[in-house]
């Protein structure tokens, strides 16, 4: 039986654990120490881990079930908005207009009453549940219609892209009640802890690391189960799977929904660490970038997806700071490079250098 934690995943989790313990410790060192880590870097690292989690979510549905979603940014953003709505409510009367009920942007728009869909978001648990439920429900309904009508391949990719674009336009509108193009920001605290306090930042960072590890284990458990084998079977020979009596659409909807909920969780963890969520997160290009992370790291490997996200996002931070005009070209070039030279991504490259150490799990070309 395939082990839940193989060598690759074990190494990754060990490294993640080490960083999660050492980074917060390094912030407590005196600033004269060479090993001191400035506290403002902690949320930045937390943000990277959110992206890694988002990549794992996409890999679960693309790498294993062959569902190339170009709309995962939407699930991420919805999770982020759910958390952002809670953080807005927590500001309470400390906003510019000092309205205890209404967030500033609503007062500014002249609204007098909280819209019904904001009800409940004053409670943290409610927002946390919504951050999973809203993306999950959207993916379920969307997937149910798409997979039942046998939409797959490039058509599915296009309609997921359309989905995120439609949400982008909707969230830009002021009358939608989500803060229009400014989005939600100026958050103060979460569960009573100030978001700018180093200890809160560390807690959020550790929580993100735990969520990443937990979701990787969950995704791994799904992929090594018999149902995971059915997903790969669907990817490789869909009609064969149907003629064995498996309802392919049920499996696709299942994995798409789980994946969307993971993306929502990533978004919910992202917002308190970044301090803002705006409609830009729905931009179609964001969703495409996630695909590049996964492709670069190695699709169908989970660990590769996480590493791909970390590598590309680090590269992006560096390039946008040093050569701001080059980033999009670099992203495009990277995509071409991966497609042509690294069909199994960085992890595939490692496997080739160190052959026969671990059997490549499920990598195949599209």
């Amino acid at each position: 039986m395939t082990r839940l934690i193989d060598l690759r995943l074990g190494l990754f989790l060990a490294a993640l654990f080490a960083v999660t313990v050492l980074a917060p410790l390094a912030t407590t060192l005196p600033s004269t120490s060479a090993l001191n880590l400035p506290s403002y870097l902690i949320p930045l690292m937390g943000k990277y881990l959110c992206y890694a989690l988002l990549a794992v979510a996409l890999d679960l549905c693309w790498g294993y079930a062959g569902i190339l979603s170009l709309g995962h940014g939407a699930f991420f953003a919805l999770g982020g908005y759910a958390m952002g709505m809670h953080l807005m409510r927590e500001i309470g009367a400390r906003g510019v207009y000092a309205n205890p009920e209404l967030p500033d942007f609503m007062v500014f728009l002249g609204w007098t009453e909280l819209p019904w869909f904001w009800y409940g978001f004053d409670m943290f648990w409610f927002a946390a549940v919504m951050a999973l439920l809203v993306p999950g429900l959207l993916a379920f309904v969307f997937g149910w219609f798409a997979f039942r009508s046998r939409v797959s391949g490039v058509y599915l990719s296009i309609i997921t892209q359309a989905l995120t674009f439609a949400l982008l336009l909707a969230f830009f509108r002021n009358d939608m009640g989500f803060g229009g193009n400014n989005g939600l920001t100026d958050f103060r605290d979460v569960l009573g802890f100030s978001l700018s306090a180093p200890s809160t930042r560390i807690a959020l960072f550790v929580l993100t690391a735990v969520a990443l590890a937990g979701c990787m284990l969950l995704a791994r458990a799904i992929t090594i189960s018999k149902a995971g084998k059915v997903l790969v079977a669907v990817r490789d020979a869909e009609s064969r799977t149907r003629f064995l009596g498996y309802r392919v659409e049920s499996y696709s909807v299942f994995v798409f929904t789980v994946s969307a909920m993971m993306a929502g969780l990533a978004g919910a963890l992202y917002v308190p660490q970044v301090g803002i969520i705006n409609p830009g997160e729905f931009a179609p290009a964001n969703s495409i970038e996630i695909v590049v992370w996964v492709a670069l790291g190695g699709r169908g490997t989970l660990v590769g997806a996480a590493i791909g996200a970390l590598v590309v996002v680090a590269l992006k931070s560096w390039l946008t700071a040093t050569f701001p005009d080059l980033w999009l070209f670099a992203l495009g070039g990277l995509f071409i490079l991966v497609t042509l030279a690294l069909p199994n991504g960085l992890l595939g490259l490692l496997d080739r250098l160190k052959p026969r150490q671990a059997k490549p799990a499920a990598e195949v070309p599209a």
Partner: protein
Amino acid sequence: MSTALIGAPLNAAQLYLDGVCRSFDGFKAINGLSLAVAKGELRAVIGPNGAGKTTMMDIITGKTRPDEGKVIWNGDTDLTKIDEAGVARLGIGRKFQKPTVFETHSVEDNIRLALKAPRGVFPVLFDRRSAEENRRVTEYLDRIRLTHLRAETAANLSHGQKQWLEIGMLLAQEPQLLLVDEPAAGMTDAETMETAELLKSIAGERTVIVVEHDMDFVRALNCRVTVLHQGSVLAEGSLDHVSARDDVIEVYLGR
């Protein structure tokens, strides 16, 4: 004449195609096809390329919807209203013309996924491999003689071995009806005869419909033969009977 060569009376038929028609872009691939197959029967279907043999299987298994006609299963179920997975769950298994196995899975996992068991997402998600399941996998692997390749990735099998693996998957489903499309393609003469023996041994307990172009194979099956031509039945009877008919010789055997 053995009983296997006697046509099924319609009321006793396990599978009954009644006036089935299907056209693609105006071309009538299946044109008023009627056919009855009895429970436990072994039936060979032959006919020239494009006669509609594969399309007939597509219609039985829910892949293709007919424009007209019915496909009655066990006297009461109309298969044309059911999707592929539903038809499979009724106990109808199928081997494709082009061998189709799960290439990235091991030989063992291919069989395991095919084993008769609940097919819903959650039972499958929480399925734990049991000793009993391993025993059944071994049984089918022994039967198709791929036991020594148990852990091999299916992509690395030869064409003939893939044919065997797909037949093994079909057996593992324990279907009541097996639809087997050109099983002998890519097999050696010896393997072809083995396949014929295997199918004969299955028939009786299960119903088997085989499409094949290899006449030695069809002869070895020693069963009732249906000749399809332009989407309908041209002739039916023993191989000797149909192959003596002028019309069959003209459209198929004589070429």
